[in-house]
């Protein structure tokens, strides 16, 4: 990969990676650090990573960096324990999307990442499996369970309303 292609990958994927990471860890500064760290790792391997595969490389690297951070901090997202004042990021979604993202916060990190990779980036089950290190069967189960959970969450809110 050339330097020009590297810089092009910044333009094309930096925002996507940032959104994905930010959605997972809900911390802007840490999300920025992960994105920077990801691109630094790419820069070190610029000669061995082709431009055609840079997107997968970036998301894989970012995901594993994020998981390492989560495990270190042992962050558990529990909707009932969430204090909105602890959020370092304010979201601006439509009503439905806002509800969905609130529901996603209840999912375990692996499931949340799978859903976001599927919805945000349109990765296939196989690609998500390669990024996350899960099996394709696990990815499929997470997707189905996640969809079902989100649907039930929406149903529960409608019931409340």
């Amino acid at each position, binding site marked *: 990969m050339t330097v020009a292609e*590297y810089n092009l990958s910044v333009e094309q994927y930096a925002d996507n990676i940032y959104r994905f990471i930010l959605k997972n860890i809900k911390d802007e500064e840490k999300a920025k650090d992960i994105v920077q760290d990801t691109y630094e790792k790419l820069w070190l391997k610029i000669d061995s990573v082709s431009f055609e595969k840079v997107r997968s490389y970036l998301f894989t690297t970012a995901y594993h960096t994020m998981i390492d951070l989560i495990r270190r901090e042992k962050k558990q997202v529990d909707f009932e324990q969430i204090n909105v004042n602890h959020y370092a990021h304010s979201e601006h979604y439509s009503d439905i999307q806002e509800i969905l993202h609130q529901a996603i916060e209840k999912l375990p990190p692996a499931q949340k990442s799978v859903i976001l990779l599927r919805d945000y980036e349109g990765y296939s089950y196989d690609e998500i499996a390669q990024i996350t290190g899960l099996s394709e069967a696990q990815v*499929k189960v997470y997707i189905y369970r996640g969809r079902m959970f989100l649907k039930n969450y929406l149903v529960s809110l409608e019931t409340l309303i």
Partner: protein
Amino acid sequence: MKITADNYIEIFIDYFDGKLTAEETVELMQFVAQHPTLQKEFEQMQTMFLQPAEAEKVNFVHLLKDINQRDEVNASNFEELCIAELEGELHNASLRGQLYQWINASEANQKIFALYKQTKTRPDEKIVFPNKKILKKREKLIELSWIYSGVAVAASLALLIGIGKWWMSIHQPSTTPSPILSHTYQVTPEMPNQVKEQQKTYANNEKFFVRNISQRTLPLATNDSVKTTLSKKEALPQLNELTPRMAMAETYIPYRDFIIIEETIFYRNYQNSPSNEKPYLTLGEWVNERINSWKNAILNLPAESPLSRVTNTNIQQLSLLAGNHVIFRQNTDTLEGRKQVEVNLGWVAFYFSYAEGNK
């Protein structure tokens, strides 16, 4: 987690109690799918632990099988097929048709399908990484360090070589073969006219293969020139008539005037040589012949005479030089119409001439 025939019941119970992680759940589902005899037992336990509606929803065992192989759409697989349709996994046209028939069959099914359509999250395009410039890199500079180091090495070598050459130039010993030959003699006004003309002739009649010529002209101190008439039979000029006296006269002694012309040895091949004789002699052979001749001549001299002592010296020198690199040259004296032969053995130089027609 290793599921065996001994512990699967406990793991089933843990699953229905919600104690398994997502990874363990998937592992359990795979185990159940690989053991069809246990699947029925699993489904029976589901009815014990879960409400019927919930039991149907969480039966993810079916997910591990190709969803397109479902025989029909029913209440137990309806939501699973809705998810498959929204995920783009449903390729069975017949099954898809049945699914949409189910969806359109009731408002409840339509609502369920609509809710599943809303579960697809979308990113907020307003969220962007601030200041992407810090992520970008400039073009890599050409690694000049190796060039610089290479140039530095080359420059150092060149400097060392230059210093070495300079050092050698000022300390290198003289390459001239002998201190005598390194002396340069000029043609002086006192030089006989004959010699001057001969010098001119030599310069105009270079006919031989020569290399590394250096001409050192020694003014003749005497008009005596060694001249001899060669017989027709000899391939080389017949020098047997050189007497010790003549040899001494032509011996190069410092301050004597001699014409010394140096050049690389060459061999001549003479015509009209007797068939039983060698066409030519090497200079070493010729020198040996002269040494033997002079030795015989010396025997006739008084032992105490100066001539004897000088002659002995010359012969000793000749002996040392026999077979060494010797200068042998033949020039044409157009002035006198004669051939001139010069032999330079280093310490001894011979000069003689012969008439052209006497070969």
